[in-house]
């Protein structure tokens, strides 16, 4: 038997082009005759656009045209859609608001697109954009979440700036639990605003072909088909047959590149208007201003407990910031990707969540690595720590006492999900032993002797990945199914082309899907080519986010491989003059059971394309496609523990140890999975102690509009991580995989805040726990003693 590739740390084959500088990102692609676009953006957070005078800009060198939202409106360009309808407490759909490609009347955040200049070069476009005179009448800006519902109205369609007042769970049952509680632990917390910041800024290049009346759009997209769908189905009159969307190499996504944006829509329109290719690449400040942001919740959480520390009921009230307009999935994040996870790994019998989602004069807010689930895990793990503190229990013990037990699966939570499988205590125990939990007291003493405050903190998280079962999410309000497609195409010479509807922007699909297919079909790994990211090449697919690629996209590939093998058996049976039922397939060989007669996969493929000696009832060719719709979410879970040392004189927190024990089900490529954990952890650490998207509450100016002010995690902020696994295979997909992309970003914030609070001997510290904040607490503590 040949060595299986699944489970092996195969080195990535995509690396070679990236390591040589031969990656092809959108901004690397050049088209003959192309022009550059530069946007005129509102400097006001909230203002009426009274008039736009572009005479000087039009006369500037190199300028081909200056356009506004009215020009796009004249060509029937409509609003960018929100694809998820959330039904509020009164049974009403959320208050949708239009988001036109370039505002037509009013600017609603700093960075809102007001006009575009198209010119021969980037420099000329930018120079001319400075010359566009916009007459604004400034209005009060709505920034502060606590007062957003009483502030000046941003959209006529949304009274009190409220998008929805939504609830999940049985409030009466929760009230009853609170009435009989021994103790109620409470916390108000902020989930800080994040600017996702993939290193490659968003970019678009649009080309129009007059001869065929068709368009090509190169876009930094995580999901080219979804982008095409929104552009053709909602925004424009362009038929899907006339728009090809290509997402080539994409330099990181993390959610922010899921969405349909104004800038690429404008490039598409302009390419036809000026009959030349039009490109735009965000600079970092534009990215900070106009990429979808993330998180930004204000939450009150209460946990009812009995004497033994058992969770009786959980009550959560959240105000979620949606920004100035609805990004494509904005409505779903603080609802169905958030409140549905409030059971976490715990058997809390009664849970109630109420979410007010509000419009503000800030950049739209949508999904970012973890998307809703980090918010849920954070509040749950924080209140678990505080409950333990209130009752004088060890934080480990309170978690252990409340875990859903392995014999309780499938476990139906009070918040609409059914977990298929897990073993939360196994991860906890492994993490405790890896970090030597019992030895902490001695390490703390030793640190104290060096003048350092040492703290330990943990979190036990669960998440819902593999988005998503179409029927379930359509009940939740989704406007699209989230199945995935695959096509497995044998070429006549025996090589295999695999087309996937997922998209890789760092995940290494060319390698992992190659491993999968090589094993499934018994063909050499080097003979398998993975194709993604081009709507004219691949079947309709839904793209990559929510740790879905392997669980959903990989499952579709397995299904397509199964179909290939089924057909191959029929061909082999014919060639070997045997009954189909007698043909077995393994390691790339079709053999007649009990004999040494066999045909290789390559021989069968050749026969399929040269069908001279071929079954009468079979079509030629060996090319199968499959669509896979998951039966349930997958539920990765785990426990992370970290230790920090704080220098009380400087407030600097050093992460001295980090143990991550995760259950991702089956692991296809441990090298890549570890990379995903590390990356997620860095983003989670960033949120917990460095990153904060800040708007000035008066003026609505984005204070953190560059990497000078928005504090990205750097190499010297982070430790090396120690990774461990436990494994319960997912019960409902053919690979047993659960997804690993978001775990780190979910687990890290509560883990790190827990450790910092422990070191400082306080119950809570708000994110980001910057050195200044930590220093102030350390100093106060010192003064109090």
């Amino acid at each position, binding site marked *: 038997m040949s060595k299986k590739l699944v489970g092996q740390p195969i*080195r*990535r084959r*995509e*690396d*070679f*082009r*990236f*390591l*040589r*500088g*031969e*990656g*092809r*990102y959108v*901004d*690397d692609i*050049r088209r003959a005759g192309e022009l550059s676009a530069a946007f005129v953006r509102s400097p006001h957070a909230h203002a009426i656009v009274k008039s736009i005078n572009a005479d000087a800009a039009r006369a500037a060198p190199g300028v081909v045209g200056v356009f506004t939202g009215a020009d796009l409106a004249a060509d029937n360009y409509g609003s960018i859609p929100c694809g998820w309808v959330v039904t509020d407490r009164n049974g009403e759909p959320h208050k949708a608001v239009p988001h036109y490609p370039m505002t037509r009347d009013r600017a609603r955040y700093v960075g809102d697109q007001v006009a575009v200049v198209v010119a021969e070069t980037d*420099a000329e476009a930018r120079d001319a954009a400075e010359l566009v005179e916009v007459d604004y009448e400034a209005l009060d800006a709505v920034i502060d979440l606590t007062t957003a519902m009483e502030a000046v109205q941003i959209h006529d369609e949304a009274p009190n700036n409220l998008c929805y007042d939504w609830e999940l769970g049985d409030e009466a049952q929760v009230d009853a639990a609170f009435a009989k509680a021994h103790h109620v632990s409470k916390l108000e917390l902020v989930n800080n605003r994040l600017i996702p*910041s*993939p*290193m*490659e*800024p968003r970019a678009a290049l649009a080309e129009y072909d007059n001869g065929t009346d068709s368009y090509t759009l190169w876009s930094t997209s995580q999901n080219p088909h979804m982008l095409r769908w929104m552009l053709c189905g909602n925004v424009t009159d362009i038929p899907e047959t006339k728009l090809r969307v290509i997402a080539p*190499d*994409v*330099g*990181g*996504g*993390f959610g922010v590149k899921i969405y349909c944006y104004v800038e690429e829509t404008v490039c598409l329109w302009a390419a036809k208007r000026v009959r030349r290719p039009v490109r735009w690449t965000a*600079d*970092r*400040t534009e990215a900070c201003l106009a990429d979808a942001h993330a998180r930004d919740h204000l939450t009150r959480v209460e946990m009812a407990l009995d004497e033994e520390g058992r969770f009786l009921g959980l009550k959560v009230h959240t105000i979620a910031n949606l920004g100035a307009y609805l990004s494509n999935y904005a409505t779903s994040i603080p609802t169905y990707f958030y409140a549905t996870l409030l059971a976490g790994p715990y058997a809390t019998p009664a849970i109630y969540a109420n979410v007010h989602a509000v419009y503000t004069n800030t950049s739209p807010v949508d999904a970012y690595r973890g998307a809703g689930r980090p918010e849920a895990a954070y509040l749950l793990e924080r209140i678990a720590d505080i409950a333990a503190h209130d009752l004088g229990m060890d934080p480990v013990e309170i978690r252990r006492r409340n875990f859903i037990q392995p014999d309780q699966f499938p476990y139906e939570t009070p918040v609409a999900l059914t977990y298929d499988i897990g073993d939360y205590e196994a991860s906890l125990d492994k993490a405790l032993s890896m970090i030597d939990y019992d030895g902490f007291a001695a390490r703390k003493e030793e640190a104290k002797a060096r003048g350092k405050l040492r703290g330990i903190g943990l979190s036990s998280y669960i998440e819902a990945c593999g988005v998503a079962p179409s029927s379930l999410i359509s009940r939740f309000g989704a406007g699209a199914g989230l199945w995935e497609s695959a096509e497995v195409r044998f070429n006549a010479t025996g090589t295999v082309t695999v087309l996937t509807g997922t998209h890789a*922007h*760092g*995940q*290494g699909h060319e390698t992992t899907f190659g491993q999968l297919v090589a094993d499934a079909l018994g063909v050499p790994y080097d003979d398998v080519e993975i194709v993604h990211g081009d709507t004219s090449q691949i079947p309709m697919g839904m793209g990559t986010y929510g740790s879905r690629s392997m669980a959903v996209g990989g499952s579709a590939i397995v299904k397509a491989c199964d179909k290939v093998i089924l057909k191959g058996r029929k061909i082999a049976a014919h060639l070997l003059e045997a009954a189909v039922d007698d043909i077995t397939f393994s390691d790339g060989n079709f053999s007649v059971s009990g004999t040494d007669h066999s045909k290789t996969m390559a021989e069968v493929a050749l026969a399929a394309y040269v069908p001279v000696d071929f079954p009468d009832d079979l079509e030629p060719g060996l090319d199968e496609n499959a669509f896979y719709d998951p039966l349930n979410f997958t539920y990765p879970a785990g426990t992370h523990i970290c230790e920090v040392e704080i220098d009380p004189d400087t407030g600097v927190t050093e992460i001295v140890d980090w143990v991550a024990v995760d259950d991702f089900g089956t692991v296809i490529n441990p*090298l*890549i999975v*570890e*990379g995903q*954990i*590390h*990356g*997620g*952890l*860095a*983003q989670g650490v960033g949120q917990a102690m460095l990153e904060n998207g800040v708007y000035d509450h008066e003026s609505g100016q984005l204070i953190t509009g*560059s*990497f*000078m002010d928005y504090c*990205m*995690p*750097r*190499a*010297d902020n*982070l430790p*090396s*991580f120690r990774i461990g696994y436990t494994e319960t295979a997912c019960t409902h997909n053919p690979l047993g995989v659960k997804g690993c992309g978001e775990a*780190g970003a979910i687990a890290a914030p509560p883990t790190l805040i827990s450790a910092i609070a422990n070191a400082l001997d306080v119950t809570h510290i708000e994110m980001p726990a910057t050195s200044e904040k930590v220093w102030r607490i350390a100093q106060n503590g010192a003064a109090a003693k």
Partner: protein
Amino acid sequence: MAEVTMTVNGRQVSRDVEARTLLVQFLREHLQMTGTHVGCDTSQCGACVVHVDGKSVKSCTMLAVQADGSAVTTIEGLASGDTLHPMQAAFNEHHALQCGFCTPGMVMSAVDLLQKNPSPSETEIRDWLEGNICRCTGYHNIIKAIRHAAGSAA
């Protein structure tokens, strides 16, 4: 306009450019060498690092005219033929890249580190990379790759 002449990866090139042209724009726009990336506007991210006369430089922070007469090495010039530079090979071996966008700058920066300090400690590597931001890898495997390339892994 100003004429600039420099040697890029061993090849002499001359172009007329606007005086405000940055070195990175010169490489990407004028020479169509798109391996060097731009990830920020404020000299923070290091996606643009190249070597100018043997030293790592953020090419977004230098004008093309300032590099007139210099020898520039970019990521495209690091491998010899099909053989990867040891740093490139170490990045592949230790999965030190995901989306690949920060990678050219990261590799060029790491190569210069080892020129200056052939066996850096983990802390020294982390400090050196302070000017190179990666959003994907959490740096863990980048550090590992550099330590291995230096032969200094524990």
